[in-house]
C-alpha cells in the first residue's frame, strides 16, 4: 500500500497478481457476465490506484475493503442492468460457475487459499435453505423482503434463516480460527 500511495506501478501490479482472481470471481458470481466482471475488476483496481487513500487500514484489512468495494460495485451494476433490461428473467444465472481448476490460483498464496477452503467448507455445511438466503443476500444484493418474494416465503422465515445461517457460519469459522488474512 505504501508503494501505491507513492504511485509505484509495481505495487499495483503486485496487488493485482495477489487479489485479482478474488475480485474477478466475486464480480462474476454477482453478475454472471465475463465482460462486466472484468469491467468491475478494472474499476476496483483503478480506484485503488487513483485514490489509494480511500482504503483506510485502521478500519479493516485490505482484502475486506476489496471484497466490499467489489461486491457493492458489482451489485450496482447488476441493478443497473436489471433496470435497463426490465426483466426479472435476465437476473437468473445463465450458467453454473465452478472453480476454474482444482489447484485454484497459486498467486493467492497459501493463507488465502486456506481461507477460501475453510469458508467454502463452512458454506457447504449450512443447510441448503440457509445457504440460499445468504447467497441471495450477499451475491444477489436482495433485501430480505425481495428474497421472501422470490422464494415465496414469509418474511419471518427469511429473517430466521439469515440469522441461523450467520450463526452457524460464525460458529464454524470460529472453530477453524478463521479471520480475514491481510
Amino acid at each position, binding site marked *: 500500500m505504501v508503494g501505491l500511495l507513492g504511485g509505484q506501478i509495481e505495487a499495483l501490479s503486485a496487488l493485482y497478481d495477489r487479489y485479482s482472481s478474488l475480485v474477478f470471481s466475486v464480480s462474476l458470481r454477482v453478475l454472471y457476465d465475463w465482460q462486466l466482471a472484468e*469491467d468491475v475488476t478494472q474499476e476496483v483496481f483503478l480506484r485503488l490506484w*487513483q485514490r489509494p487513500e480511500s482504503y483506510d487500514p485502521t478500519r479493516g484489512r485490505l482484502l475486506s475493503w476489496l471484497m466490499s468495494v467489489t461486491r457493492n460495485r458489482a451489485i450496482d451494476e447488476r441493478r443497473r442492468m436489471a433496470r435497463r433490461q426490465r426483466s426479472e428473467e435476465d437476473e437468473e444465472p445463465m450458467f453454473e460457475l465452478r472453480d476454474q481448476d482444482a489447484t485454484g490460483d497459486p498467486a493467492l498464496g497459501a493463507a488465502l487459499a486456506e481461507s477460501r477452503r475453510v469458508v467454502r467448507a463452512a458454506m457447504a455445511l449450512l443447510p441448503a435453505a440457509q445457504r440460499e438466503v445468504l447467497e441471495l443476500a450477499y451475491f444477489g444484493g436482495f433485501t430480505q423482503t425481495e428474497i421472501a418474494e422470490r422464494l415465496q416465503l414469509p418474511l419471518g422465515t427469511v429473517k430466521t434463516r439469515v440469522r441461523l445461517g450467520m450463526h452457524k457460519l460464525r460458529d464454524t469459522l470460529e472453530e477453524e480460527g478463521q479471520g480475514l488474512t491481510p
Partner: protein
Amino acid sequence: MTPEERDELLTAYALGTLPGPEAAAVEELVRRDSTAARELARYHEIVDLVALSAPLRRADPSLRARILGAARAGRGEPRVLRWTRWQIASAVAAAVAFVAVFGWAANMQRELTEQARHNAALAAIVEANAKRIESLTQTGVTQSLQEDLQTQLQTALADQELVTAISADRNTKMSVLEATSAGHGAVARYLWSGEAAAGVLLARGLPDLPLDSVYQVWFDDGRRTFSVGTFTPDERSAVQKVVRLPAGAGAPQRVSVSVAPAGGASSVGRIVVLSGAIEANPEAY
C-alpha cells in the same frame, strides 16, 4: 426487542439487506450499545468472508495489461515504446493525443463510473492497436511485404486516431447489443460518436463461424440498412472493431451483426447474432 429480533437486525444489517429505517435503527443501537457494536463488527467480518466462497475464476490475462496500461496513462507514468524511427512521428502524435485525452478522461472517471467503462474499453483498443503497430514495425520487412505492411500500419494508425476522437467526444453513446438465440450468449457493446462519424464494436463470446463465413456489421439509420464492414473474431471469440460511417449515410439508430458468406452479403440475411438500438439519450456523458 427480543434477543432473536436484535440478532436478526444485526445479521441482516451486516449483509446489507435492511431497508433504510431499520438500518438507521441498527446504527442507533450500535452507537449506544458497545456489545452490539462488537457483535456487528464480527458479523461484518463473517460477511466479508462469504466473498471467498465464490467459485474461483481468473480474468482474461489481457485484463492485467489493460489495467496497468490505464493506470500508467492515468498517472502519467512513462510508457515504453520500441517503434522504429519513421513511424514514431505519426504514432506518437496519436499516442500523445490519446494520453492527453485520457488524462482529461481520468478526471472524469472519478465522477462518472460509466465513463470509466467507456474509457477502459477504448484504452483496451488503443493498447491492442499499439501492440499491432509494434508487431508490424518489428517484423522483418522484405520488399514484397513492405507495401502491405505500410497499408496495415496506416489503417492501425487511422483506427488509433478515430478511437482518440471517439474518446474525446463528450456525446459518445454506448449501447448494449443483445444476443439473439443464434448469438448463444455473446455479449457486445457499441460506442458511437456522431462527431467522429465512427464507432467501436466490442464483442465477446461470439459463436464459431461456419466455414467460409464472416461476421458482418450493419447500421440502420431509420431509412435503410447498410453494411459497414465484416470481421472474423480473434482466437478468444472476441472482436474490437472500429466502424466508420459511409459517406452520405445517416447516423445509425440500430446496430446488428449477422453471419455472412466470406466477402460479405448485400443484405442482412437470416442469421443475426447481435442487435441493439443506439440510445437517443446518452446516459453518462
